């Protein structure tokens, strides 16, 4: 069995890659994609800890997997909403560059 640390390192890398993308990319869709990567890093964690529970306690606890499924479903809805927002932003400003969308500032 692959030790849990490996999984957690992959998960952390995924999260870091996502966070880096969120912070640096200017295209709003790419930013949204990066958020998905971060979300999936968290999902991976949930599944890993769920399976690791059996190793620790000798019996399976599926609640981590259930959370992961919930999370995926919610992520799907979130993507739909996020894309809709980006679409209407594009209609309004003819751009999806997040640096330019700053009308909510002081």
């Amino acid at each position, binding site marked *: 069995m692959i030790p849990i640390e490996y999984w957690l390192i992959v998960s952390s890398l995924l999260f870091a890659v996502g*966070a880096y993308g*969120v*912070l*640096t990319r200017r295209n709003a869709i790419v*930013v949204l994609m990066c958020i998905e990567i971060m979300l999936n890093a968290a999902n991976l964690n949930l599944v890993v800890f769920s399976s690791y529970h059996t190793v620790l306690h000798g019996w399976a606890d599926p609640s981590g997997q259930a959370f992961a499924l919930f999370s995926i479903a919610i992520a799907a809805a979130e993507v739909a909403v996020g894309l809709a927002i980006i679409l209407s932003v594009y209609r309004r400003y003819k751009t999806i560059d*997040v*640096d330019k*969308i*700053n*009308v*909510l*500032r*002081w």
Partner: protein
Amino acid sequence: MLEYAWLIPIFPFVAFLLIALLPKRTLFYEDGWGYAVGGAAGAFALSILVVWDVLMGDTLTGAEAPRTTWLIIGGYEVEFGIWIDQLTALMLVVVSIVGTLVVVYSAGYMHHEGDTRRRYYAEIMLFVSVMYGLVIADNYLQMFIFWELVGLCSYLLIGFWYERPSAASAAKRAFIVTRIGDIMFLAGIIILFKYVGTLDFAGLFEEGGTHAVPTDMMVLATALIFGGAIGKSAQFPLHEWLPDAMEGPTTVSALIHAATMVKAGVYLTARSYPLLVQTPESLLFVAAIGGTTALVAATCALAQNDIKRVLAYSTISQLGYMILGLGAGGYLVIHANSPGGYTAATFHLMNHAFFKALLFLCAGSVIHAVSTNDMRMMGGLRKHMKITSLTMLIGALAIAGVPPLSGFWSKDEVLAAVWHAGEFDSIFFVLWFMGIATAFLTAFYMFRMWFLTFAGEPRSDYHAHESPKTMTVPLIILAGLAVSSGFALFIGDGFKLFMEGSIEELVPGAAVESLGDIAVEIFTDPLTYVSLVMAFAGIFLAYRMYYVPGFDRSRFSSGVAGKLQRALENRWYISKFYDDFAVKVVYGLSLVCDAFDRYVIDGIVNGFAYLGGMTGGAIRKVQDGNVQRYTAVIVVGICLILIFVLYILPWGGW
């Protein structure tokens, strides 16, 4: 009847409300004249009933008088009540008679004023109402409230023609200068309240009512209360507002600035007698102020060309007489157990109200006819205005002290009281000389005025005509009073015994003079003849200088006489002193205060606001609307928190 005396101010007040609030169409004749006469006459009728009761020996003072609670502050109840004694009755007589006649007279005098008459009648009614309120007040606080209200009405009416800058500034001056006195009055009241805990006359005036007040504070309190009188009665050195107050309509001058409001100061002094006689120092101050005022104002009146200003200075001078009489009278109460000075001063108060109102209304009649105040533009008016010239002659004779007119009796009584007080403090002899000099000057300037106005040839192209009946009838009535009010000394029990009633606790068992004794005393006293000679000398000098043609007055325009003449024309430069020195000092002080307020007080307050603004301005740059920057802050923040929780805290021992 007396317990209904509180209704007296209600009549004019209702008239004030009606005139102020009714639609113009329902004001009828002369824009509210009818209502004003109604209000004044109602108060007059009720006043006469009250005065009649007082004449019958009935008074209403202290506990038995109706009172109502106005305010409750902590444990102290501020009450309004009425205080009817002989002094109140005297003031009621003056205010009701002069007030009513002046309102009647206004119909003619204010006829050309158009729509502003409504404001005039409303303000006059308000004044009459609060003046009654002042007179019947039974505690110092109530008196002070009405005291301020008459000041307000005075301000409004002096500034009646407010579109004239001189009138507007005269109104302000009157208000501000009298305010100095009012502050002193208030300070005196506060001192009394601090020690005694009540402001009711009943509590303060009873035997030992002020034993809680230390002697020096008592002197201060009485002197300060008299300070209120200095302002209101235009005593030296706060007298300069009264001549300026002549900017108002002449009716206002007659009512407020001759017969009633300026008497409020004398009334206050007389009312405070039970306190004043406890402090001889204050009495001396009162007398000295009175004597100085009488003489200074009389000299100022010598060289005025404005007919109303002559009368204004004359008013100040006569008020000084009354104050002098009261100050001397206090010494007589203390040392001789005699109310002589008090009765003399109040007697002069009444007589002066009648003849000075008469003189002012005559002057108003003249001004109405020739449309100028300047006596140099008049002359020869006798032919055109028979009634006015005759009534004014009566007024001038009365004030000059020619027997048997009213001024003779009361002026003589005052001077006799001052002379008598000289036995106890020789300073009163000096004051008596000032008084007798004033008597001479009074006779002189009054007849100078009369000759300049009515005698000789016209000095300008005027079209004079006698005034309408609404004006001449009040003149005739007042002339009758100016002739006859002096005989009050001999009517019934006599004026002296009557007035003694209001201070009888102070002079227990004073010797009662019979009316015959009083008459004999007056006519056998050589002092009477001194003042008579002075009066006739003054009249003769005026006759020689201003009536007999060929007198060369230009000899007074050079040398020492010229300097004196110019000093008199400039009223001893007192007004100039205030303008050039006092005003500048106060203005400089104000500038300092302004700078302190602007830069220190406001500086601190504004500094805090500026600090907040600056901080906000610096911090708000962070909120630049860039989502990624927000995110970066969040990420870095979470990292810092994690480092803190995972490494710093365990390192610290948690």
